[in-house]
């Protein structure tokens, strides 16, 4: 078993550079109309299921709270942009501040987690140093422990580090969950970059750090994008740590925490919640759109015989 063989992007790098699977099916590249229909039908159904909940949130976001729960669901029922207007105007809490905080925290987490994961992934991929394998195993174990149970020790730890209540502390906590997986992914990418490239760099006068910075990072860009996406999503939607570790002031809340106000024990403002959710999902969708082509495509080859 090889945990590092996981590469959501497929075999990165030229080392796996055999010809990808060619078109295959009934007769060479052509599909019978029935098969074609079946294929598209299956994908359309799957896509509908994948999209539908989000679509329905969108539909709901235009309805007033009192019309969100209806006896027979309708696409439009007193629909308007009011929910959005009120949220953006700050009537329901300082939405824009939450948004900014979330962006800041998710952005910092992304950058920090990717940097940490990249440097570790590079070290584990390239230097066969004592403890390297142990580190990877440790990362696997870290994912096994239920961290929800550690909120209080973590809280106290952050407190004693003086990080409690600050975005920085939360970013560090998010990094501990994102870094292990990102490290696996990036190690896989680095493994796919031929060693000769590092060696060529060292011959050209780079130090190992220089190789990392000037060769590995640019070459693993798709991998960085994918891991960045993962880290971003991890931080963007997280609720439990954010509500425990951030100050309750409107100015320091994240979106996920701010939105809790809409869902209270005996009162759920579905319309506003839906509108806010759509607003929350937009940046995630943008980030997702930017990296989606890397999610499956490999690293462009070209350093060796193609």
């Amino acid at each position, binding site marked *: 078993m090889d945990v590092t063989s996981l590469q959501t992007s497929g075999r990165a790098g030229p080392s796996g550079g055999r010809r990808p699977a060619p078109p295959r099916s009934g007769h060479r590249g052509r599909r019978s109309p029935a098969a074609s229909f079946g294929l598209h039908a299956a994908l359309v159904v799957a896509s509908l299921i994948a999209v539908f909940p989000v679509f329905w949130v969108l539909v709901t976001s235009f309805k*007033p709270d009192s019309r969100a729960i209806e006896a027979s669901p309708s696409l439009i029922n007193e629909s308007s942009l009011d929910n959005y207007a009120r949220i953006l105007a700050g009537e329901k*809490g300082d939405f824009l501040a939450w948004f900014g905080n979330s962006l800041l925290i998710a952005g910092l987490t992304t950058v920090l987690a990717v940097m940490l994961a990249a440097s570790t992934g590079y070290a584990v991929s390239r230097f066969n140093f004592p403890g390297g394998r142990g580190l990877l195993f440790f990362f696997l174990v870290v994912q096994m422990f239920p961290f929800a149970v550690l909120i209080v020790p973590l*809280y106290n730890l952050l407190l004693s580090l003086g990080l*409690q209540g600050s975005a920085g502390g939360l970013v560090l906590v998010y990094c501990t969950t994102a870094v292990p997986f990102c490290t696996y992914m990036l190690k896989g990418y680095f493994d796919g970059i031929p060693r000769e490239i590092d060696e060529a760099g060292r011959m050209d006068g780079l130090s190992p750090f220089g190789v990392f910075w000037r060769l590995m990072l640019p070459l693993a860009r798709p991998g960085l994008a994918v891991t960045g996406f993962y880290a971003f999503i991890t931080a963007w939607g997280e609720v439990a740590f954010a*509500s*425990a570790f951030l100050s309750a002031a409107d100015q320091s809340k994240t979106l996920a925490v701010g939105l809790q106000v809409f869902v*209270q*024990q*005996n*009162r759920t403002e579905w319309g506003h919640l839906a509108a806010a959710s759509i607003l929350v999902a937009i940046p995630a969708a943008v980030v997702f759109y930017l990296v989606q082509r890397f999610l499956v495509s490999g690293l462009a080859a070209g350093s060796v015989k193609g």
Partner: protein
Amino acid sequence: GGSGGSDDQDGPVVFWDTSGPGESAVFRDLAEGCAASGGFEVAVEQVAFDQALNNFKNAAQGGQGPDVLRAEVAWVAQLAHNGLIQDLAGTGLDDQGDFLATPWSSTQFDGATYAVPQVTDTLALLYNRELLDEAGVEPPTSWEELLDIAPDLGGDSAFFVNNDGYYALPFIYSAGGDLLDVENQTIVVNSDEAVAGLGTARALLDEGAARTAQDPGNSYGNMKAAFASGEVAMIVDGPWAVADLLDGAAFQDPENLGVAPLPGPADGDGNGPVGGHDYVIRQGSERTDDAVSLIECMSGVEAQTTVAVELGLLPTRESVYEDPEVAEHPVVSAFSAAVERAHPRPWIAEGNELFDPLKIGYADVLAGNLSPAEAAEQVATAYQDTVVPDYTIG
């Protein structure tokens, strides 16, 4: 978080407001007004009600958090028990004054005063006047009566049973039951009376006199939606719901929303649980003086009058009810009678924890998974196992 740990006397007093988005603006204005007149600054931080207790505990445990918290009545004993809020002795806030007895009782723990009542509430029977008038019936005064008039109201569109544990209390209380007998350290949720109460709820469904939503997460929302759209004629709910209900199609004319006392015996300990919120000061707050004056001001007559008038929430001071504007407020006046007869709850540290097992058991009863007796037995066991291990099952 919060910045309450600062000993910088120019920093604001941090107030965690757990009210909903519809109410928070009023409390914010009040707090800021009080601060201005008191000569200090206040930072009002809105915290989701569901998260507030845990977040407060996390923070207070580390010496951080707000100076003042708006705590649900059942939290006070628990926080006091854990030493996370201040004993108000010597601050001047420990004087009952004209506070109503029932809300005031929620501030007491171990013989000391830990909180000051902010608002009080209880459940009442809300009804759709138009539908009742059409059917030619009056709001029922007992559950049996509800069974009788249900056919006139279209059977199960007569009433909506919310399967949340808190909403089981009217049935239990009206049947003479209770959850715990604190004095005797006994669990009585499985007493015959309590079982009978749960049975009443079940019977409403069985007889086709009521409907319910069996998924706990959606139950409350569905009840409100059904009532607000005119699908059902009656529900049991508190004053906090009124504002939302008036948005509904059935209550475009606010007059159409009727409030009546809960069905049940007119004598006795009362049929609805007392609820509401209190102000507490965090143990370790370095702004105790300002916090005291903030609470003093916010629980004062003037502030309570504002809250009652603007939000229709029920004041905790006797005198506020005398204010004509308050007295005429339709919601306040409708609920004030119910509040006076609200059933006190056990003000013990575990009080807040009683609802999770009850919620599960009650939902099982309503879903027909368990008989009322079985469910009550299960709840009792759960109480003894995890909530009040020192108690005996009665």
